[in-house]
């Protein structure tokens, strides 16, 4: 897109204000996700057009409560607005989204935005909710007091989007002139310090203000020049001498200003006491001593149950489609190496993974609903005590819950955690949560383990696997907090936003994004791995052309690798064929299923109508006893619960922690844990007389 940009627009605001909904409504599908230069935070940008077709870029800033940041996520918003990011000029205008039903708190961030010296447009979202609560907002007065355009909106049904576009494309856009007044001594110190900062004139005032209200630790971490550092300290001392606390003075001043505005523009209809809102009533159940847990377990169970039952229909269709494609390919191409590569390598490998798309989508659907409805914050609220026992806080629970879908968004979600050590601990344990890539392995193994079990029984075992990952994550977090990453339990400061009906369109859009990523992975990483695996399992070919398929497999490089590690994994109950699967899935867990498919298809291609599960069940050890006993299946599942087998996660952990130390440590400790876990299950199980 070479067209000239008319304006660069940033969209900011507190979390849970409908910021993403407005972003989506403005840009539609003209979005792209990239990264900020130098840092790893996801940068979401999009295109939209002004009222006269002017092309504008919209930058979605991470939701934040303040520019005085305490988390990497908020740092991105601040750095961009202050022009600290190299190659990213300050935006031309900031859309600040606020919740109209709670201006008392949400105008705080507006107060800060007005101090930046960049034109601001206030998107007054959820005016319908405010109306329903009996609040009337005097728009003219609000515009007058803030000195910037205010657009009333209901983003969930696109009300106000056109007016918002008009407001940001208007020329000229005046810079805000009104803002909260700090005590005069404070303003003097700001002006003095602003001259010393290296920042450009427009943002130097805000930079100076932010430095002045840093605490000792924050000031040390800000990497200021010795002169500036000394000047800030001197300024803070002078302020304290004048009886002004540099930390609370600006906050008090802004809230006072906000309170004055609110009392002038917000009018309550009817009785002052609004009574219990629907949200309060929901909380009475969802965070209740008893019902809260019942609801939590019920929701999780429903989610896993749907993953099993609802998903099975589309999965059958995909399965049938892949089989048909295989047969068709086999008919078109003469038997030989090339046919084998396509049918046994590519189609079996990729098809075996793509079939899990429906389950992954259902998982993301549920997590999306939990997130958007506001329930995630409640989960953090009820889980906090448990998390604080291992030295973390409730906020670490959300990345862990997201890791049930995929460790990658989970690791990225740790950016909301303020403390570096806590963030590292959460990153280290997040991949222990059973992600959707493990699902294929569990499903196949459970089916092999208990052929006659019903959906409920299977879901039960599945839940146990998820619980095992959860418990392991808790124990390891505790261990890390006591040893490697020793630090105090962090403070919890959690907003419990009002419950809202999730917007299905937004969730659908994210599911689409995830599906694309998953399929792209299947088409690249997994396709490549499938071909490599096929080659490993096919070459070198045995000299004796009369060799059985099993002999040919043993002769191949893959077979030899499996044999080589067999002594190591034999105590876990695994043979060399499972060994091939484990070696193969060090890059991606879901490859295991495809590999098993390849191994057994290659071996028993004559019975290709038999499913993988039956073939695995029929598999015998050299002494004639069945290989996949329930105990071996369990041991294998435990291995997959605990092992780090995902190149994508390793890559994201390396990016997020800024080096190879932590990802390598993570691989080492998780592999050791997996080996130990499987060993205990298999040897312990044998001692107890299980098979």
């Amino acid at each position: 897109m070479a067209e000239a940009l008319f304006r660069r627009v940033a969209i900011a605001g507190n979390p849970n204000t409908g910021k993403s909904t407005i972003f989506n409504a403005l840009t539609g599908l003209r979005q792209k996700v990239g990264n900020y230069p130098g840092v790893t935070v996801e940068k979401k940008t999009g295109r939209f057009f002004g009222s006269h077709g002017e092309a504008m870029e919209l930058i979605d800033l991470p939701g934040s409560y303040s520019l005085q940041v305490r988390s990497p996520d908020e740092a991105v918003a601040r750095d961009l607005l202050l022009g600290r990011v190299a190659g990213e000029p300050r935006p031309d205008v900031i859309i600040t989204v606020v919740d109209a039903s709670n201006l008392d708190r949400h105008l705080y961030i507006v107060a800060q935005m007005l101090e930046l010296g960049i034109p601001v447009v206030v998107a007054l979202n959820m005016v319908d909710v405010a109306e329903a609560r009996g609040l009337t907002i005097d728009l003219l007065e609000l515009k007058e007091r803030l000195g910037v355009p205010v657009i009333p909106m209901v983003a969930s049904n696109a009300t106000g989007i056109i007016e918002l576009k008009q407001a940001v494309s208007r020329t000229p856009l005046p810079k805000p002139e009104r803002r909260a007044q700090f005590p005069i001594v404070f303003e003097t110190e700001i002006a003095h310090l602003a001259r010393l900062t290296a920042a450009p004139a427009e943002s130097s005032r805000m930079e100076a203000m932010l430095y002045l209200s840093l605490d000792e630790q924050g000031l040390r971490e800000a990497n200021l020049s010795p002169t500036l550092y000394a000047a800030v300290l001197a300024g803070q001392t002078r302020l304290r001498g004048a009886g002004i606390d540099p930390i609370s003075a600006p906050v008090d001043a802004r809230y006072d200003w906000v309170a004055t505005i609110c009392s002038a523009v917000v009018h309550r209809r009817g009785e002052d006491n609004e009574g219990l809102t629907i949200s309060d009533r929901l909380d009475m159940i969802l965070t209740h001593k008893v019902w809260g847990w019942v609801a939590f377990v019920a929701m999780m169970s429903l989610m896993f149950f749907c993953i099993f039952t609802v998903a099975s229909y589309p999965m059958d269709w995909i399965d049938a489609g892949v089989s048909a494609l295989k047969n068709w390919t086999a008919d078109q191409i003469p038997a030989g190496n090339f046919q084998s590569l396509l049918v046994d390598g590519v189609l079996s490998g990729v098809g075996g993974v793509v079939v899990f798309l429906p389950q992954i989508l259902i998982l993301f659907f549920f997590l999306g609903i939990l997130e958007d409805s506001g329930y995630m914050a409640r989960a953090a609220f009820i889980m906090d005590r448990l998390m604080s026992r291992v030295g973390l806080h409730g906020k670490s629970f959300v990345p862990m819950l997201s890791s049930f879908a995929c460790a990658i968004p989970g690791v990225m979600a740790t950016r909301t955690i303020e403390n570096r050590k806590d963030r590292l601990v959460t990153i280290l344990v997040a991949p222990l949560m059973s992600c959707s890539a493990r699902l294929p392995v569990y499903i196949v193994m459970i089916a092999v383990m208990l052929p006659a079990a019903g959906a409920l029984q299977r879901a039960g075992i599945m839940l146990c696997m998820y619980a095992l990952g959860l418990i392991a994550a808790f124990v390891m977090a505790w261990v890390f907090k006591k040893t490697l990453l020793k630090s105090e339990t962090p403070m919890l400061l959690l907003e419990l936003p009002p419950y809202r009906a999730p917007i299905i369109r937004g969730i659908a859009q994210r599911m689409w994004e995830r599906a694309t990523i998953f399929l792209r992975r299947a088409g690249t990483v997994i396709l490549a791995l499938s071909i490599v695996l096929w080659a490993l399992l096919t070459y070198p070919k045995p000299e004796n052309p009369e060799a059985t398929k099993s002999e040919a497999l043993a002769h191949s490089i893959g077979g030899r690798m499996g044999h080589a590690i067999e002594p190591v994994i034999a105590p876990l109950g695994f043979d060399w064929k499972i060994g091939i699967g484990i070696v193969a899935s060090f890059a991606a867990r879901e490859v295991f299923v495809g590999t098993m498919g390849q191994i057994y298809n290659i071996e028993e291609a004559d019975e290709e109508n038999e499913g993988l599960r039956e073939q695995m069940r029929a598999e015998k050890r050299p002494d004639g006893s069945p290989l996949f006993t329930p105990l071996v299946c369990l041991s294998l599942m435990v291995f997959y619960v605990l092992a780090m087998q995902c190149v994508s996660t390793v890559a994201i952990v390396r990016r997020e922690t800024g080096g190879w130390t932590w990802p390598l440590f993570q691989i080492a400790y998780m592999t050791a844990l997996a080996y130990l876990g499987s060993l205990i299950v298999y040897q312990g199980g044998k001692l107890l007389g299980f098979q």
Partner: protein
Amino acid sequence: MDDSVSLASLSPGQKGKITALDLPGAQKGRVMEMGLTAGTTIEVIKVAPMGDPVQYKVRGGHISLRKAEAALIQVQLLT
């Protein structure tokens, strides 16, 4: 100041007016930016199922804090 008590000592349903925040630097700033400034009315809504943290209502929004931090916030009990 003699009638000021710690926020942690309030039970669900009770309200107080914040008089002082004795939290360390950055934590104090953070708590204040969420709306808990001196002079603000704060109401205890409920205690989490496992006994901690506690849900508070302040400036029309709901915020959750642990008792350890609430113990460092002084309030004047409102009746």
